[in-house]
């Protein structure tokens, strides 16, 4: 109910806000929000706020705050802000109402069209689908969630759910195409779609993912695109559709060869196309473990993968028996990729994995794994084995979750690719002893002797290998950084080779000068990077190993927000433009690096788990990289205009936080941060 008094009071508050200058606005807005509070408890109140939105905006409601410019808001962050509670929640609700007012043409803002506002709201709903269906999920009865339910009611009334389908299909496709090890988010999103959005099931033509720059979500029919994923995740075959996991297992027990072949064909295809597996997949895999042909077909093995299977048949069966359980079916996909990589034929890997079969976990390690999969009845040993298979099979599917541990996640990914034996050894060491040691410049660093690392509240929503290793790696990394500090150069120069392995090239170039806390000789830095990494200037050679490099992360506004660790995997020309292909441990390869610098995960020949950016854009975010002096090509041939273009992207953005050598005063004041962490 909105009473006349409510209207009058809101009007008074708007007038008060209108009179306030920037000096007292925060205080006045705070008091206005205390009135908005009651209005956001019901749709009628929201409607009233929506109608008042032009006046609220004119009075300066959003001025001077993080919501000021709608062009800088990010749909994927809306959910977190809505849940934050109190004034933050109220401001975020008002921000959505402004978008709605813009979308409906109730008001206009220069440079922000109604179409753009509408698209923002659609993307917000897609990216926060859990919030859209809070009520249907039996939640949102009190507190902040009840306000979110009310907001979503209004939004759903104005933006039909059906119009979200194209966006949802793209979101799910982009999530899956990165082939993350942890697929819970994609599966949860699909479950919400299945439970709450009517989708017309369309026959999906088997088409795979042709690497022709035309991603499959270009299919104009969102129902068909969604069906592909829904079928893979929930109804991979007629038999699976009709039976729950247990019934399906019984069904498989009695099934003949022909039936099994049919199921293998159906479930295998869905898994290959989406990277998703459910309990049914695990039952089927266990059932066909004894049949090489069916196993190879189900896992979608390449020729070399099939050879690997035949060569290590008994061990593969042993692994399936131990690690493949319906509760952690994602291993079905991982196992196939492990075989395709031919890793079992590497002796350190096979022996390392064999030792897992008798591994007894330290109680602390077991507890950590159990915490990461609450309610799972599998033994911690089996969970760890399954995710070890996943980590070896999908090195680019490893993510850091919400932890600031990009360095550690990057390490696990690098080792999986180039030192899998070493990785297995580390997992076992920590698994048994809940401790890890590494050498640094002649000293042995023991994690248990060291202070805290970067992480405080460890997010356990990770694969079990990361759950086990990251807390130890994080401490060791931190200690190495501490020891290498104050040498007048970026500590990563010494830390990266010690941490990751001695195949990291010995020379190192950084745009940031520790001794003078400034950007030094940026041009030479860029020339060296082009001359070592760009095929036009490095005599055309390729990267032998991934290069662990540091980048500046900047906000949508361009301001420096921090530093991040990624790996350059390869550099390729795609349709006339040279792109850097990279691994981002951020669990989301689409992480924006700047308003206009948005890595893509598909459409340019990216392999699953890779992101890519045009070379120049990438160079403009880079602050440090390793290189081999003998690999430096022709730095002087890099054209000045290319460097100017890169500089013009860097200077006004993160560059504003630093003093540039030879240019006197800092751009924007404030002490710049020292590169570290991620």
């Amino acid at each position, binding site marked *: 109910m909105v009473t006349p008094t409510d209207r009058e009071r809101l009007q008074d508050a708007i007038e008060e806000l209108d009179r306030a*200058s920037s*000096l007292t606005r925060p*205080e006045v807005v705070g*008091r206005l929000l*205390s009135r908005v509070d*009651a209005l956001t408890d019901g749709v009628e109140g929201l409607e009233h706020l929506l109608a008042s939105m032009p006046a609220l905006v004119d009075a300066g409601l959003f001025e001077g705050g993080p919501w000021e410019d709608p062009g800088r808001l990010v749909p994927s962050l809306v959910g977190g802000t809505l849940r934050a*509670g109190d004034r933050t929640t109220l401001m975020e609700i008002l921000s959505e109402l402004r978008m709605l007012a813009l979308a409906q043409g109730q008001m206009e803002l220069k440079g922000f069209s109604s179409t753009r506002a509408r698209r923002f709201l659609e993307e917000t709903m897609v990216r926060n689908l859990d919030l859209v269906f809070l009520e249907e999920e039996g939640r949102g009865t009190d507190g902040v969630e009840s306000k979110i339910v009310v907001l979503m009611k209004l939004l759903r009334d104005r933006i039909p759910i059906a119009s979200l389908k194209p966006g949802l299909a793209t979101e799910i496709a982009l999530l899956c195409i990165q082939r993350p090890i942890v697929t819970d988010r994609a599966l949860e999103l699909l479950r919400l779609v299945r439970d709450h959005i009517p989708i017309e099931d369309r026959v999906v033509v088997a088409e795979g993912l042709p690497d022709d720059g035309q991603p499959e979500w270009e299919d104009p029919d969102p129902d068909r695109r969604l069906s592909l994923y829904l079928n893979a995740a929930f109804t991979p075959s007629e038999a699976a559709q009709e039976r729950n996991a247990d019934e399906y297992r019984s069904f498989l027990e009695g099934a003949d060869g022909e039936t099994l072949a049919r199921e293998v064909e159906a479930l295998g295809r869905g898994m290959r196309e989406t990277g998703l597996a459910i309990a049914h997949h695990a039952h089927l895999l266990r059932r066909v473990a004894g049949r090489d042909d069916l196993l190879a077909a189900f896992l979608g093995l390449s020729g070399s993968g099939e050879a690997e299977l035949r060569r290590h048949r008994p061990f593969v069966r042993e692994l399936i028996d131990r690690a493949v359980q319906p509760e952690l079916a994602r291993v079905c996909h991982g196992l196939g990729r492990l075989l395709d990589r031919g890793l079992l034929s590497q002796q350190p890997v096979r022996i390392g994995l064999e030792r897992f079969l008798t591994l007894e976990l330290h109680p602390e390690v077991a507890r950590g794994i159990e915490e990461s999969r609450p309610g799972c009845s599998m033994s911690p040993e089996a969970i760890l084995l399954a995710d070890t298979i996943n980590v070896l099979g999908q090195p680019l599917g490893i993510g850091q979750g919400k932890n600031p541990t990009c360095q550690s996640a990057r390490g696990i990914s690098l080792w999986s690719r180039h030192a899998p034996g070493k990785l297995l050894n580390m997992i076992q060491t920590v698994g048994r002893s809940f401790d890890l040691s590494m050498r640094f410049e002649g000293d042995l660093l023991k994690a248990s002797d060291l202070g805290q690392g970067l992480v405080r509240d460890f997010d356990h929503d990770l694969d079990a290998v990361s759950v086990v290793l990251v807390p130890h790696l994080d401490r060791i990394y931190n200690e190495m950084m501490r020891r290498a500090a104050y040498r007048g150069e970026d500590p990563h120069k010494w830390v990266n080779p010690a941490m990751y392995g001695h195949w990291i090239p010995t020379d190192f170039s950084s745009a940031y000068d520790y001794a003078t806390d400034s950007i030094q000789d940026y041009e030479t830095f860029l020339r060296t990077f082009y001359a070592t990494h760009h095929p036009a200037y490095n005599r055309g050679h390729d990267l032998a190993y991934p290069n662990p490099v540091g980048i500046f992360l900047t906000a949508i506004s361009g301001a420096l927000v921090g530093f991040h660790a990624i790996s350059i995997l390869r550099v390729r020309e795609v349709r006339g433009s040279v792109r850097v292909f990279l691994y981002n441990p951020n669990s989301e390869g689409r992480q924006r690096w700047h308003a206009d610098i948005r890595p893509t995960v598909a459409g340019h020949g990216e392999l699953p788990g890779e992101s890519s950016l045009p070379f120049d854009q990438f160079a403009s975010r880079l602050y440090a990289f390793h290189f081999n002096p003998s690999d430096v090509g022709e730095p002087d041939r890099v054209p000045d205009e290319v460097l100017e273009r890169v500089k013009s992207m860097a200077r006004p953005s993160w560059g504003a936080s630093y003093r540039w050598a030879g240019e006197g005063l800092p751009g924007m004041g404030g002490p710049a941060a020292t590169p570290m962490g991620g």
Partner: protein
Amino acid sequence: MSTPVALLGWSLPAIETARRMGRPFVVVSFDDFSGWAREHDIPFVAWDFNLWNERSNALQLRELLDEHGIGLAVPLFEETVEWAGALNSLYRDDPRLLNRGYLFRNKAMMKRKALLAGFRVGLFEEVHAPEQVHSFMSRLNEANLQLEGEEDAWVHLKPFSAAGTVGHKLLRSHAAVDERVVAEDFPCLVESHLPGQEFSCEAFIHNGKVRFLNITEYVKLGYSNFVPAGPELEGHRARIAEAVDRLVDAFGIEYGMIHPEWFLTEDNVLSFGEVACRIPGGHIFELIEKAHGFDPIEGLILCSDPAVDEATLEAFFPESEGGGGSYAGSVMVYPKPGRIRELAIPEALKEDPMFESHTLIAPEEHKVSDTREGFGNHYGTVFFRGDDPSRMRDLLVHYQDADFFA
């Protein structure tokens, strides 16, 4: 062009008002604010009001202000009152203005002055040690003809020069004196407890005449009050106005605003509590603005300026001093001792037709100590508005004890 004014003390609403009035001004406050002032283009002179010596005194400050052409000083906070007195003494060539500044800053001196002017005040004494507090309480007990086993007389202990309830301790027994009085309290003032309904006045004075008299009804000292006072208290307006006039005469106040606190007993005897010469606490100025519809800071600046003419004042202040039937009240929220995790605004409050707004914000989780002296820090304020003074009183009483945190 009007005389450029020095605003003594950092107050964003005051800066905003001065800007809106289009009056040239400079803010005088601690150096901590200089960065902010520069950033927001606020004319600023850094000054440490707590430092007074041969190189930091009103003559030096005046020199700094001369660069801005200042001819008038307005005190906003307690610690700036004698500085304003000193500056205005210089500007108006009247040394007594400084002494008057001191008068407001020393509660013992102010009470003696009131006593001499014929006001009823409590029994008071300046004390330097805990034994003197005991003796004072014993003498009060004696005067009250206390019998064995009867309660001790209540004694209020107050610093000489702090604002409002800062450092105020109500001592109800000799035991309380032992428990709560500490060496740092001295020297200070002790006084007997005055019974009766407590209220304050905000009198805007120009050329020795009260131009507007607001009466603020205290529901609970340090917690809640509303403007204008309810009909019971407003019914005594003539008596109160007469007392304020007498106070203004006795104290020799010509310009500015004073904020005296009074007690009215059931038999209609008015006692003088104390008087301040700065922006009152308890959000009283905000309530005045809501209830009377004028900006009291503007009123303060106008009344502080001898050059402002009658017509301007006449036009500025509303006709009716008792308000137009709309009441504005506030209650300051103090958290209950214990652990605090989040803000939990009672539903009934949000839905109350008299609820206007609040300034409570979600706290970081923390523990609230139960050993508070004075009133401690309040966590925010709840504002009410409506036309029913008795309901206002009930709401303020109710929400003074409500729990806003979980």
